[in-house]
């Protein structure tokens, strides 16, 4: 093979790797799950919570694999519990507002957002609790004000850079340090706009 095409291929590959390393596109596809398809272990765990409201089960497909999610509303908060296909708890997400983030962590997050965007607005905030310890389920019945270690904050942010506004999913660790940033592709709205 000639030297020049080889160099071009290498440059293209390296460019792709470096530009995609930090900022990626988010892909998720979810569909409702029939009762018979819910992993028994996951179902048992949710039933043990004795939630009075409706619980919706989804199968979620993403770039990292397939999972099962249970979503419900309890005490005016939206909860989402994610399980693997065997029914083992992976993590719990709770939708919160900015006032529920620790003040010092919030300040670091907002400073980061101000440095990344000319202008931004926060569409949604979720706090992630890792699921390795099933005792995190006790948070549902006993919400705690202090966060634990390994908690993450996932923000959906409408951010403007230059003249363009896009939507991003940004994940911050418990200290407010940005660990992940993905652009959320807006779904086609031609059938609504025209």
């Amino acid at each position: 093979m000639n030297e020049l095409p080889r160099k071009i291929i290498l440059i293209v590959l390296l460019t792709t790797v470096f530009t995609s390393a930090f900022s990626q596109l988010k892909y998720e596809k979810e569909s409702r799950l029939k009762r018979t398809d819910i992993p028994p272990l996951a179902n048992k765990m949710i039933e043990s919570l004795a939630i009075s409201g409706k619980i919706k089960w989804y199968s979620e497909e993403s770039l990292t694999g397939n999972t099962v999610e249970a979503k419900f509303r309890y005490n005016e908060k939206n909860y989402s519990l994610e399980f693997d296909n065997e029914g083992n708890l992976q993590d719990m997400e709770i939708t919160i507002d900015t006032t529920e983030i620790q003040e010092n962590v919030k300040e670091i997050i907002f400073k980061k957002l101000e440095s990344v965007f000319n202008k931004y607005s926060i569409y949604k905030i979720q706090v992630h609790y890792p699921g390795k310890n099933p005792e995190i389920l006790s948070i549902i019945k006993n919400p705690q004000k202090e966060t634990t270690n390994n908690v993450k904050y996932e923000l959906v942010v409408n951010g403007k850079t230059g003249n363009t506004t896009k939507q991003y999913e940004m994940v911050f660790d418990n200290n407010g340090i940005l660990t992940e940033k993905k652009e959320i592709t807006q779904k086609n709205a031609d059938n609504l706009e025209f």
Partner: protein
Amino acid sequence: MPTTLSFRWYILIFPLLLFTVKNGNAQSIYRVGTMPSVNINFGLPNNWALHFKTESRLLFQSGQFGKEPVRDFYYVLSDISMIASRKTGLNTNLGGGYLVRILENQVIHRTIQQFSIVSQYNRFRLAHRFSADQSFNLNPNEEVKLKYVQYRLRYRIAAEFPLNGQSVDAREFYLKINNEYLYGWQNSGNDIEIRIVPIIGYNFVDKSKLELGLDYRLDSFLNATTRNSFWLSVNWFFRI
């Protein structure tokens, strides 16, 4: 979200009540037909896009409520339009374009301006579209001797609900409901038109959707004889 439930009730009940009231008028006339359309969007650089649309109307039946209908299949018109639009923000779009309406014995020209806002909520999308159009008859003939300009202001609210999951993904069905209000005036006359369009759609992939539903229109609202139109709406949306 408190307003979600009340919005859903509004979008279903109010237009149905309106239809019931107007249907009670024995003088009302109606027509039934089909209205297929093809919508092709071309994405351009710098958030620009071109929207090309062609739509036809075919009439099957018309008449007055309570009387024997006239069943006669005939072609009513074809519309060909092109709108250039630009995303002005994450959820907003501004556009302007031109439409040519071809009828049996005349051609009508129309200029269009529109602004739309699409918002994503937890389990549905809501769109507001504000538009204005101006229609011209530039070539008077024996049957339509006068040149005219008709002005219209329009507001449309549309909601799209996924029928599987929390968002409309590829290979999934959705429900879409449009409700539009049009106010038009020409010379000294004016009129209001209300449209309600419930539709079932199928998302093949994000850039290809097929929709089927009923386009109900109530016009000649301010006159003694109101007109009800029932069009079978078949729409294909494709983005290149």
